[in-house]
């Protein structure tokens, strides 16, 4: 029952947040300087053409009516029509989502398979040779601080200027050519992974270091448990909450579209699409895209909280304590 009420509270909070976000997105898209008429139709458009397009997309209604119409149709899963392509926005996102999802998958996999073990390893070895620890910190610091566009530009330059065996730019759908797909995604995924690995490794390292000084770890060592067993049995679970938080945040960010990577490698993903839509004042696309990103963040946050409750029962107790 307590779990049900927790989910209910989260759901209500998500609905309220999304409602507020929807107002914000709608207002922001309409406050952008430069209207659809000038941007989409161009300077030569006649007043008749402008009126025709306004009527077609409901832009001749008052802002409140426009919002209400958008909100009520969005609730049925209809996010409107793109003014540029004339296609339903959901269809357009459906075409681009696989690219973004694949990139996100690579990023999350890199974080899990490389970032987490690297963080644990550098934490466990923190008491060892000073040079190694400093090197680990330097590497993760560089990974976090070097902007994606710098690293991406270097990679694009090197791999296009010199035949180094990997495809630079363009996207091959996995259903069309799985090997070609892998070749086209490897470099963008690698560039993206540098930041993701670095941030995950740093967080993991800090969390693990925090756990390693706990008395129960000292007790485990005193009991003669092996270091591997201690890490797996006692450290990982207790250090996992901040790591899970970072991982879910990174996943949500990646699912919203890694714009810079998509642009640099010419990947037709969600991020590029939203940026293009902003530039062209394609309102329906902007609204749907930002709302989609907000939904992803809210869902991921909720899942993070749920995972935290499972990983550390004290979360639930704390809530209970507050009630008393």
């Amino acid at each position, binding site marked *: 029952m307590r779990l049900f009420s927790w989910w209910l509270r989260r759901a209500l909070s998500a609905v309220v947040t999304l409602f507020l976000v929807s107002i914000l997105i709608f207002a922001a898209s309409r406050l*952008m*300087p*430069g*209207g659809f008429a*000038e*941007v*989409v*139709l*161009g*300077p*030569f*458009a*006649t007043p*008749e*053409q402008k009126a025709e*397009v306004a009527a*077609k*997309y409901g832009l001749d209604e008052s802002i409140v009516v426009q919002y209400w119409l958008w909100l009520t149709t969005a609730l049925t899963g209809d996010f409107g029509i*793109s*003014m*540029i*392509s*004339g*296609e339903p926005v959901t269809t*357009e996102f459906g*075409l681009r989502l696989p690219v973004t999802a694949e990139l996100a998958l690579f990023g999350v996999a890199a974080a899990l398979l490389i970032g987490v073990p690297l963080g644990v390893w550098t934490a466990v070895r923190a008491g060892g040779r000073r040079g190694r620890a400093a090197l680990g910190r330097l590497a993760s610091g560089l990974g976090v601080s070097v902007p994606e566009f710098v690293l991406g*530009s270097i990679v*694009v*330059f090197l*791999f*296009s*200027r010199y*035949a180094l065996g990997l*495809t*630079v*730019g*363009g996207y091959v759908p996995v259903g069309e050519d799985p090997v070609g797909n892998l070749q086209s995604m490897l470099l963008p995924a690698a560039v993206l992974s540098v930041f993701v690995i670095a941030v995950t490794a740093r967080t993991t390292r800090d969390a693990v270091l925090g756990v390693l000084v706990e008395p129960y770890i000292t007790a485990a060592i005193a009991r003669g448990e092996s270091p591997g067993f201690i890490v797996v049995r006692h450290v990982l679970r207790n250090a996992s909450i901040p790591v899970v938080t970072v991982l879910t945040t990174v996943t949500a960010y990646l699912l919203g579209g890694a714009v810079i990577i998509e*642009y*640099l*490698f*010419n990947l*037709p993903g969600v991020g*590029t*699409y939203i940026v*293009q839509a*902003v*530039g*062209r*004042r394609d309102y329906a696309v902007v609204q749907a895209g930002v709302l989609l990103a907000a939904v992803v963040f809210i869902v991921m946050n909720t899942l993070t909280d749920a995972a935290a409750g499972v990983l550390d029962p004290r979360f639930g107790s704390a809530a209970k304590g507050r009630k008393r």
Partner: protein
Amino acid sequence: MRIPRILCAVAATAVLASCSAAPVSDNAPTSEVPGYLAVADEAVTSGGTLDLQMTVDNGAPTGLDPQLADVATSWQLMSLVYETLVTVGPDFSIEPALAESWDNPSPTEYVFNLREGVTFSNGRAMTADDVVGSFERLLAGQGVWKTQIGPVEKVSKVDDRTVSVTLSSPYQPFLASLANVPAAVLPMQEIEDGSVDITKEMLGTGPFVVKSHRQDVSWQFTRRDGYWAEGKPSADTVNITIAGQEQARMAALQNGSADLVMLGNVDAPELLNGVRGTAVGTQATTDFYYLMLNSNAPGGKFDDPRVRQAINIAMDRDAIADSALGGLGKPTGVTPAGLPGSCDPALLPSARADLDRARQLLKEAGAENLTFELAAYSTAPAPAVAQVIQQNLQRIGITVNIEQLDEGSWSGKVYGEVPATFDAALSWFAGYADAAMVGKWWNPEQAGFNLGFMEPNAELNTAIDKAIATPAGPERDTALQQLCDAVDTDAQMIPLVTRPALIGYRSDALSPTLYATEGYGNVFRGIADFRLLTK
């Protein structure tokens, strides 16, 4: 630690070398055929897949209707499918296309003899009715091109292969205006019976048909059977990828995943210099940058013609061409440099005056310490052009604050309000294929888009009308010079420099046909001739 002297010397040499003049690109294509940047090698076997990359897709709520297409990108894409009665040659002479010949019995009458054996891609033969219907549809529609095709009074079918067009008054650019995609011959029978919606699909007489299109991602065209020009097109398939990022296009060119790419960076020839197997050509275009001075600007900053003239005098077009466009643009008047009959920008009234005259004009107008905002969009090289303008005007005591905006915000600021509230703005025009065509946009009552910031000028309008009505010959040259002078003196929209098009291609994979100068921004004009060397 002491740094060895030899290292210091090497470093100093490197720094000095980087500060010296940019190296001349040695991978520029050279053609011995006059008027061409490159000519496809016909000895190469036909066939293969052509991979091209463009910066933006055709994208408008008006869809794929060629008569409503008003930007060069759309013309470029649509030219693979649609064709016109006539076309322009490399020297801007009018050449046959769907009309194999034409007669001009009087200055206001044109009779087109249609080519035999032309079919639309659905197999139906093109008829005189399609030509007549296309004209009528264009004239009745809302496309901007109806302004450019001139005072068409009557279009009639003489017989199945002959169409007659009567103008209400002489209009010299008529044939040149017919050579652009919006004047294409459409499948009128299918449009009228509703079997084709040309806002959603393309059905033309051209060499290719659309196989697939994903908005802002890609196009795929395939060769069509039954194309009237024997042996054309050469390529079986044309893949066009839309790649907004310059770096991505350059990468695709370098690693060979694209055979030809459009480039925007004027330094591209130097950046790609030395990359084996690539060539970067600079195609001159008749497009040109211009400066708008809003006659309705707040505070009446530019309502005095003397202030505008002073600004025009201070424009150093050579400096703009050299510094902002890497020497690839050319100074121009309103008749775009490169077109037959275009006026010499060095002879313009503003070019003949000096900076003292500019200062004197400002003094007379009481605008000695003028400060204004210049709205420029952020797409290169516009910001660099704006900076040179800023420096130019500093010389006569004018302070320019550059406002760099994304294209949407820029459009909203410049075209969003009537009367407009901006001070000044930088933009560019497509220059078209006849020296007098673009001049029509200097009459705001005809152009429409500039009504918010430009006051009609009766004298200028007379010069525009005379330039478009005067037939080719010495009299027309005089009329064009008068048009240039009138625009220069009016100075509400000041022509600056031409806008070059940079084309990178794999010289080891592709043998393209490219004009040296292009009037309608159509790099794909010769695409039916492109030969693939390695596929």
